[in-house]
């Protein structure tokens, strides 16, 4: 109950943010990315953090939502809400097929198989004609209930809503039989089975909830950017980013993915836009023409993936339970 109140309060605070920064599309863009990554990572956390089933293929569900929505809008100009529902159905189907095959495997094999399924989805989309193949899908116009879909606000609130729903489901789950069962599966599958837990059923349940939430975010993303291709929504890189956000924030905690996204998304953006180099140069600490200045300007912006990787390694070495793990009661 306490957690639900906290979720509502923080959601209200987040909902007020656009009122103050409404004029800055750049900032809003970053905030939308933060909310989306927080929600994606929270949805992954239901399966990875609570049931302990590390999926490396969540891009498949994100892509399922994005592609289904974009195809239906561009071909039939369907109401985007219906398209989101259709995306959920497609994600369900992929999840059920994946789960029924892959959950027979344990441990590392599940992680590997989830990559394989995601790659199958990616390669299929790349080679079908109705999915736009390598060119992707571009949406020229989309409308819903007279909302201004050229503004970022509807997407900000959309992402926020999905994040709140995901967090509420997570908080509720932790207080339910299913939540106990998922954690039992994470801790020891044999013990769980011997205590009457149907492993495949509960793993599939977690995967299904996780996949459906992920697909909604994919749908929102597609309509928001209005252009998708396989490298944007079905790439292994996306799956890994989702996992890293959860790991750095704190796997198996309610707020870990949110903390991870608040930290990593702006950081990635700063590195990408060479914010650090600009600050140092502007402060007069580094000359723009010096070797170090040139290095910052020329290389650091391209090295954001490297920096990201270093942070991940440091986190794994020194904060194995994530940032929130630091605050967890040690019993």
């Amino acid at each position: 109950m306490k957690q639900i109140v906290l979720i509502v309060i923080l959601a209200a605070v987040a909902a007020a943010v656009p009122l103050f920064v409404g004029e800055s599309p750049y900032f809003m863009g970053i905030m939308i990315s933060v909310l989306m990554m927080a929600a994606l990572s929270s949805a992954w956390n239901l399966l990875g953090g609570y049931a302990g089933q590390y999926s490396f293929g969540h891009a498949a569900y994100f892509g399922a939502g994005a592609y289904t929505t974009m195809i239906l809008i561009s071909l039939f100009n369907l109401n985007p809400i219906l398209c989101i529902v259709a995306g959920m159905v497609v994600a369900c189907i992929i999840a059920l097929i994946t789960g029924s095959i892959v959950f027979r495997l344990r441990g590392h094999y599940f992680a590997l198989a989830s990559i394989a399924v995601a790659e199958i989805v990616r390669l299929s989309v790349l080679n079908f004609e109705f999915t736009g193949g390598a060119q992707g899908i571009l949406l020229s116009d989309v409308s819903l209930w007279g909302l201004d879909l050229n503004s970022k606000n509807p997407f900000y609130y959309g992402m926020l809503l999905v994040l709140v729903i995901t967090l509420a489901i997570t908080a509720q789950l932790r207080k339910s039989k299913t939540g106990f069962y998922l954690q039992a599966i994470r801790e020891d599958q044999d013990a769980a089975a011997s205590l009457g837990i149907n492993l495949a059923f509960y793993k599939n349940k977690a995967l299904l909830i996780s996949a459906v939430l992920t697909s909604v975010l994919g749908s929102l993303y597609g309509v928001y950017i209005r252009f998708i291709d396989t490298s944007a929504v079905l790439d292994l890189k996306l799956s890994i980013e989702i996992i890293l956000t959860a790991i750095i924030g704190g796997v198996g905690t309610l707020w870990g993915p949110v903390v991870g996204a608040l930290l990593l998304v702006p950081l990635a953006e700063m590195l990408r836009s060479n914010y650090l180099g600009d600050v140092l140069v502007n402060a007069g600490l580094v000359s723009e023409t010096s070797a170090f200045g040139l290095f910052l300007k020329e290389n650091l912006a391209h090295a954001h993936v490297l920096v990201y990787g270093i942070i991940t390694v440091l986190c794994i070495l020194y904060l194995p339970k994530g940032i929130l793990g630091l605050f967890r009661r040690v019993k």
Partner: protein
Amino acid sequence: MIQHLLHISHVSKHFGGNVAVSDVSFSVDEKQIFGLIGPNGAGKTTLFNCITGFFPATYGDVIFDNKKINSLRPDEVCHLGMVRTWQRVKPLGNLTVLENVMVGAFCITNSIREAEAIAQENLQSVGLTEYVGKSAGSLPIGLKKKLELARVLATHPKMLLLDEICGGLNYTETGSILDIIRSVREKGATIVFIEHDMKAVTSICDRIVVLNSGVKLAEGTPEEITNNPDVIAAYLGGGHHA
């Protein structure tokens, strides 16, 4: 097979060419404490795995409560009222002691509140009440064994299969586990247990089966077993001259 709660009929388990259990049959009656003993590698744990659905038997039938359970999954077997513990304890390490037992209790209830009540009750019966908030992984081995016992008791089983529940425990700890087992039987459950500690087995069991190299060597009351020359030979070596 009328009043037998568990009936093992000609069960064999092969792993490739290796025969771990060969043509073993016996029956366990309701409210019995039934011992399964034998030297290391005799096939006792494998037989438990066949009975509880972890590996299906290669040949033979397992009949529990008049139902054939050969091809059921472990969770289905548990829901029929047969639950096991593990020789190497399997605590849900990052959950608390209370949460561990609640997981067991969810076998018979969907409500958090009821599960917690059942868990508290069973923790009390094994004497772990003061540890409820501790993480299960941090308990010493003796208490982990008791935790396993509380967790299976919370499923309200008809039959418990205990795999070396006294293994690695000292004299006092063994005694307190045996007391718990007796009181569980008083409440109407049936117990099959694997044990190495002959003193523990003979003091508590109504009937004993001895396995050796996957084959049933003897069956009988504790007195019959302790006086059986084949059993003595199997335990002390020698005896069998080809």
